């Protein structure tokens, strides 16, 4: 499985309130949530994002509220993968559980810039920055989490057991 797209770049501690503000949590419809994704940190994001694009951020991405609406909104906006130095733990679980690919990689998070064309090979965890000509190896998931990812989410994984 591969992803390929243009990068949207953010800094440290991107919280789930800015990913999807609570004023929109009166809906749980993915398409509707996607319309307001990142609104309080990057009002132009929804206009700029194209299917397949990649989000890159630094430390503690997805901190704060446990709202699963946050990874749902990112996924429904067209983002194919989020790369960060670290993820807040609830966001990490939620992303895996709903089938939003995420990768932890400090070097990639530090060096990749907004607008770079990036390709990701999920089979070997490699990240290629086509604009810069650099490559990075993401942290491997434990086998148990790989099984959830392969099943495309926790519910399918439990159903298959």
């Amino acid at each position, binding site marked *: 499985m591969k992803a390929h797209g243009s990068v949207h770049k953010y800094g440290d501690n991107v919280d789930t309130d800015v990913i999807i*503000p609570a004023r929109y949590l*009166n809906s*749980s419809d993915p398409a509707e949530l996607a319309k307001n994704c990142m609104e309080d940190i990057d009002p132009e994001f929804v206009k700029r994002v194209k299917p397949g694009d990649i989000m890159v951020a630094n430390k503690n991405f997805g*901190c704060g509220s*446990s709202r699963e609406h946050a990874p749902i909104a990112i996924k429904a906006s067209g983002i194919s993968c989020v790369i960060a130095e670290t993820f*807040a733990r609830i966001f990490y679980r939620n992303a895996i559980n709903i089938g939003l690919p995420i990768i932890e990689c400090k070097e990639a998070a530090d060096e990749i810039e907004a607008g770079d064309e990036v390709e990701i090979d999920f089979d070997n965890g490699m990240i290629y920055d086509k604009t810069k000509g650099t490559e990075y190896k993401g942290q491997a998931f434990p086998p148990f989490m790989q099984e959830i990812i392969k099943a495309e989410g926790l519910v399918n994984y439990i159903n298959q057991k």
Partner: protein
Amino acid sequence: MGMTMTQKILAAHSGLDAVEAGQLIEANLDMVLGNDVTTPVAIHEMEKFKNQDVFDKDKIAMVLDHFTPNKDIKSAEHCKCVREYANAHNITNFFDVGEVGIEHALLPEKGLVTAGNVVIGADSHTCTYGALGAFSTGVGSTDMAAGMATGKAWFKVPSAIQFVLTGKPAKWVSGKDIILHIIGLIGVDGALYKSMEFTGDGIQYLSMDDRFTMANMAIEAGGKNGIFPVDDTTLAYIKEHSVKEYTIYEADNDAVYDAVYTIDLSQLKPTVAFPHLPENTKPIDEVGEIKIDQVVIGSCTNGHITDLRIAAEIMRGRKVAKGIRTIIIPATQAIYLQAMEEGLLKIFIEAGAIVSTPTCGPCLGGHMGILAAGERAVATTNRNFVGRMGHVDSEVYLASPAVAAASAITGKISCPCELE
């Protein structure tokens, strides 16, 4: 190798003699919680399971606390969805308007969580019950659904940071000031993936409400859970509120911690977190002149009866400054009633504050006190992220009920000591 308190609870709930940090386990759950924002998503996920039955109708709690009383039509539809599901599946612990309180104040008060339990909740502040000596942690809606269906959840066993609390806090220094100080010390990702285990002789001076406040905000340091040892204060609370069987777990003497911080509570001052992260803390004497527009005293963090008593002590016989909208939200119906019987509500209303029905409301910018562009609030809530209480250009300063009440009187962020 010795185990931390959290590791002992997780081992016992996974049928294992011992666990170590990093190990993946599947733990049996004593309670699975959701609210009106997260439960509709979980119900939607539940519909995808082959088996539609819940694992135990007595071990699921659904609490309609965030956008209730329904703030708009969409919120009303969400609450209706949860209500219909709860009725169809005979969910014992379903709390609707009239019985509802803010979930993390309500569950301990109703005795639904107790020492030694493993609890997950589709709300990040589920870590609150660590105050009772339980392992409890926030998850998302899909984990909630899996918990409802199977009674189990997977965890990576966390390592821990130990906080040794010594000494007696000074007057006007509360659990809120202690946890804000700690978050300022280690940062908003200082405890990422880890347990925050509190210990030391200073704990004897902390009320249960102080401990709930501190465990509640473990998530604001990135923690998986925050946990306190069980002492006489805990046991008195448990006996008053719960008939559930409880188990006391203690950390081994040779338990391994990633880091140990010793904090002399007698040296702490009232502490305020500046926008837009809970780690941006300053002691009250370094705050400077910050004029405010609104004060909120409430939330799962600080809507307890002791919080209201402290606020009333400061507001008694005084008036809030002209133009300061002061919103007081008892966390549960029982706290509301208690505050009424003690005359606290009269003090608040005579001071020019308003008192609301229990709701999470303004804490997450839902309703009941949204800020306009350029406005500032002092709040006893738990997050001061960009846009958290309203407009993206508004500001939230996090503080204790004492500081919030004093600030309402003066119209700027103030130490209650200034009013003495």
